[in-house]
């Protein structure tokens, strides 16, 4: 089951997602990136139906870029979150997307922020959040160890605790995770946590 979780620290926000692409009992690949970099200072971790996930996040990414081209300035994280919620809400009673989203961003004026957006378009600004079966474990871990203004090192320690808990206690635990960070310097990949590496392609 797909696990996505995120938290806000001192001057940064983290989004962590598992990297398994699963179809029924088959694991297609174990290095699928589910945390999209929306623009220079925004991350969107998504979980849900694979087709909807990729299509919807790409749609949001392109619209965020379009706004910047048209207006010359980037959207704030709050604006991007509300736009995303609006798209999900409009589609909800016609052709709903089954995608849960954690949108993390850094704005110069307001600092780091994290938005929880449900697949039925409930929006809420949070300090820590999680989706999927993994949320039962990661939220509990974060409730215990999270505090405001954590440093990057403390936050990564907490993320590792959550990943260990998911791997230990979830019956179909995903083996690999990707951690992405967004701070003043921008949005980027921070690290991978792999316990299974895909076999490299070999020439015939």
């Amino acid at each position, binding site marked *: 089951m797909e696990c996505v979780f995120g938290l806000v620290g001192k001057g940064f926000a983290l989004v962590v997602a598992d990297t398994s692409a699963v179809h029924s009992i088959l694991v297609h690949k174990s290095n699928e990136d589910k945390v999209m970099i929306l623009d220079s200072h925004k991350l969107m971790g998504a979980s849900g139906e694979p087709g909807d996930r990729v299509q919807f996040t790409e749609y949001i990414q392109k619209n965020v870029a379009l706004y910047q081209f048209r207006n010359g300035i980037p959207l704030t994280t709050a604006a991007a979150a509300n736009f995303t919620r609006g798209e999900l809400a409009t589609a909800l009673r016609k052709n709903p997307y089954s995608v849960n989203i954690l949108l993390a961003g850094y704005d110069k004026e307001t600092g780091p922020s994290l938005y929880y957006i449900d697949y039925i378009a409930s*929006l*809420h600004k949070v300090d820590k959040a999680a989706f999927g079966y993994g949320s039962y474990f990661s939220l509990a871990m974060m409730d215990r160890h999270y505090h405001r203004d954590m440093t990057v090192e403390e936050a990564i320690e907490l993320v590792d605790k959550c990943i260990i808990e998911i791997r230990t206690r979830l019956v179909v635990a995903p083996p690999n995770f990707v951690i992405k960070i967004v701070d003043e310097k921008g949005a980027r990949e921070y690290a991978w946590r792999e316990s299974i590496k895909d076999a490299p392609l070999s020439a015939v």
Partner: protein
Amino acid sequence: MSIFEYNGSALVAMVGKNCFAIASDRRLGVQLQTVATDFQRIFKIHDKLFIGLSGLATDAQTLYQRLVFRHKLYQLREERDMKPETFASLVSAILYEKRFGPYFCQPVIAGLGDEDKPFICTMDSIGAKELAKDFVVAGTASESLYGACEAMFKPDMEPEELFETISQALLSSVDRDCLSGWGGHVYVVTPTEVTERILKGRMD
């Protein structure tokens, strides 16, 4: 589980002497899991008119955005704020528009009308208005709230006593409902000022 009970909510509004109070719980949940403990359910339309929206959070947010839009248009055309009675009729009409595909929300409207006379009403998800002279309730804890309010309410309370009464009614009712709670948010509105207070109750 009913769609009205998906996120969990508790709302109550009471009439006092030339004032009113409106209160809500602060939990945002996804069925059994709590996502946030600082969710806003009561919104200000103008200084003397507040609306609380219980039920499905996504519909509460969509409905609130539509109502703010309609009220701002009204302000531009009429060059004044909407009266609470008028606003209640507007909400009722907007809800009935979606009669065969409704918003899963139950609004609680509270305001000061002509000559600062307090006005409260609630309606069901398709806009059936229920005016009351004393108190109105909505949400997953509504049955407990009816009992608590009936026992604790008395007419013509001053703002301070009204605040105490509505707070006790809210906290004791949400303690009997697992889907609402995590504190309270109370607004007490008189002709001259608006007082907003956060309550700390059983945090579970």
